[in-house]
């Protein structure tokens, strides 16, 4: 990427959206080099800075760049599905300026050298910033604690066994206690493994009709209930990834009411789709956790609106064609999500479940805050990681145009409203939409 530092750039005639300060107003923003130096409602409305390059936003929304707290990058190990570079391009095309990757690479991110490898490789791309989670247990096997203290020092933002739940209650207890020693967060895939074992979609009538093995909703609630008790026991900081069920939302709601240090996120498929998307054995709709019932989907929407669910992540899971062009039971789980994250989430705004400011909050400030990242807000002194978007522009999801190497989107062909116009990382425009 261009090494030349950008000069002063003025973004004028914008609708500023900054959830951290609650600003939703017409105004402007000035960057100098890699950082934001001024931002205010009314800024540059009457005057233009003489010494800066001017970008006229034309009334579009200027928000902090999105912070995607759950992405699978496949590098190292599965570069045929995605690389740090292709994920970086995919991210900035989706308005994501920071993403946090799961440790389920090959080799697993469970030592200091691999954490440093990912950070170094990603920096070289100069696209969306990449932060790694590291394994909570060695080799993600759930048997022995990983070197959580040293990995945190090396830059791991949190600890998780990725797409696997930490199965043993004793191991979970110790991981929470040990992580709490260092004040770091543990992220759980909340699914009781023995109940989920062999299942490929939501358990219920549809699975029965299709003749597919189901995963009951309570697999999520059981794991969350267990974990809440362990959080209460240890005081460990806990985050539940990709909530998919009404019962799961209820567990987190109660835990928050009890004052436990617990947060959670969900992903667009869980508030925009239900199990019907599996339809005629569509493997692109085979996700983990599985798409649930309509009642569950509504509960996820309500959880987001009420703030029980803190954040929205893409849960970007690239799979090549060979992994999806299979009988449903044999196909891999997961869907790509970086480039549909914003427009699908904007459906919550268009359907009047969330305000525009709340949409941006769930996608940037909330995940940044709960991971301790200095991102997700329009704050002078912070890195100029920005997203300029039009929330109304109509279009259609077209995976062929994805920058991601993989095209396995459960939203294939879906009409959408909302488009990323420009993505800025450290003051540089890294993505500009075609006119």
């Amino acid at each position, binding site marked *: 990427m261009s090494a030349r530092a950008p000069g002063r750039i003025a973004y004028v005639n914008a609708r500023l959206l900054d959830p951290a300060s609650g600003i939703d107003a017409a105004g402007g923003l000035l960057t100098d080099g890699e950082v934001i130096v001024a931002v205010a409602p009314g800024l540059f409305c009457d005057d233009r800075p003489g010494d800066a390059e001017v970008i006229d936003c034309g009334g579009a929304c200027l928000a902090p760049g999105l912070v995607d707290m759950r992405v699978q990058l496949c590098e190292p190990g599965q570069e045929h599905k995605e690389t740090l570079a292709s994920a970086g391009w995919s991210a900035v095309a989706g308005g994501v300026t920071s993403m946090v990757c799961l440790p389920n690479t090959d080799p697993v991110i469970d030592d200091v050298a691999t954490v440093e490898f990912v950070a170094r490789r990603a920096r070289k791309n100069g696209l969306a910033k990449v932060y790694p989670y590291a394994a909570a247990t060695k080799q993600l096997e759930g048997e022995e*604690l990983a070197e959580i203290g040293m990995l945190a020092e090396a830059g791991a933002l949190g600890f998780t066994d990725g797409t696997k739940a930490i199965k043993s209650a004793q191991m979970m207890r110790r991981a929470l206690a040990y992580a709490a*020693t260092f004040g770091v967060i543990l992220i759980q895939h909340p699914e009781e493994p023995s109940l989920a074992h062999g299942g490929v979609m939501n358990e219920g009538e549809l699975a029965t009709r299709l003749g597919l093995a189901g995963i009951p909703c309570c697999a999520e609630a059981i794991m969350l209930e267990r974990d809440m008790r362990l959080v209460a026991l240890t005081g460990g900081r806990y985050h539940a990834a990709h909530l998919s069920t009404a019962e799961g939302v209820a567990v987190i709601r109660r835990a928050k009411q009890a004052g436990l240090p617990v947060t959670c996120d969900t992903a667009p498929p869980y508030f925009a789709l239900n199990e019907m998307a599996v339809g005629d054995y569509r493997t692109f709709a085979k996700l983990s956790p599985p798409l649930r019932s309509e009642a569950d989907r509504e509960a996820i929407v309500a959880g987001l609106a009420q703030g029980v669910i803190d954040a929205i992540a893409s849960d970007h899971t690239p799979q090549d064609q060979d992994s999806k062009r299979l009988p449903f039971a044999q196909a891999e789980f997961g869907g790509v999500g970086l480039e549909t994250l914003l427009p699908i989430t904007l459906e919550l705004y268009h359907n009047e479940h969330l305000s525009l400011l709340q949409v941006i909050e769930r996608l940037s400030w909330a995940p940044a805050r709960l991971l301790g990242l200095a991102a997700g807000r329009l704050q002078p002194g912070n890195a100029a990681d920005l997203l300029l978007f039009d929330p109304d522009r109509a279009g259609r999801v077209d995976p062929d145009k994805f920058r991601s190497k993989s095209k396995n989107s459960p939203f294939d062909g879906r009409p959408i409203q909302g488009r990323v116009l420009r993505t800025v990382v450290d003051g540089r425009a890294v993505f500009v939409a075609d006119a």
Partner: protein
Amino acid sequence: MTAFSRRHLLGIEGLTPNEISFLLDQSDGYVEKSRSSDRKSALLRGRTVINLFFENSTRTRTSFELAGKRLGADVINMTVAASSTAKGETLIDTAMTLNAMHIDVLVVRHPDSGAAQLLSEKVNCAVVNAGDGAHEHPTQALLDALTIRRRRGGLGGLLVAICGDLLHSRVARSNIHLLNTMGAVVRVVAPRTLLPSGVERLGVEVFHTMKDGLKDVDIVMMLRVQNERMTGNFIPSIREYFHFFGLDYQKMSVTKPDALIMHPGPMNRGVEIDSDLADDVERSLIREQVEMGVAVRMACLDVLTANLANAASRGPS
């Protein structure tokens, strides 16, 4: 009446400051005695002391053996494999057998907490707990206190940090009780996985970093990490443990400048303590602790057998 009139020494918890001070005063005398060329006395001549050890131990057993022999007692070592099944039954059977032989003092070490207490309920002799499970190791706490008191003149007001595997440590529990009873301020420093639940209710301040926990302390007590059963479960690796919780010169930089280091032994050099630091005569009391151990055990054997004699003379028959 002496200031310590108990029949057994099973633990520190429940002892009064007077009782502890008395035992330490007695021990002081035996330090001088052990340093002189005339180490041997005939005080316990005709008395029988049995070291009944259900766990491997070299230093504690030797220390008790030496203490008994210097006082003129007949000392017998019995080491019993603790692996046999039905331990409870074996323990009581063993106790009854020994009791029938008219012994005076039974020194017991056992991997199960409460074993010394159980024995004490079954025998007529005095019982000294030489370590029971993760419960207590009273003579270790006494020898630690003696070491500190001789260096610092007293225990009251000292700031003491106990660091490492508190979860499995009987030494830590005995020391916490003793130091609190004598007016010292006790901190514990460990990852949360190595802290027993409710430890703060024992009257300690809890820390999770050495930097905060060792700030301005007078004494640093390190505990042994039993790495064979630790790695992966309670701590990820020895490397990580030493990095965050192993004592080295850098971590000592926040203590009081004249802070002293203690360790109950046996040490794992490079695991919980830096090798050079352990050998640093300016800071490390580790060898002194071993010397004090013999004196403390002499005092305990002396006091307990004296109490046996008193009980006998007061008794009905």
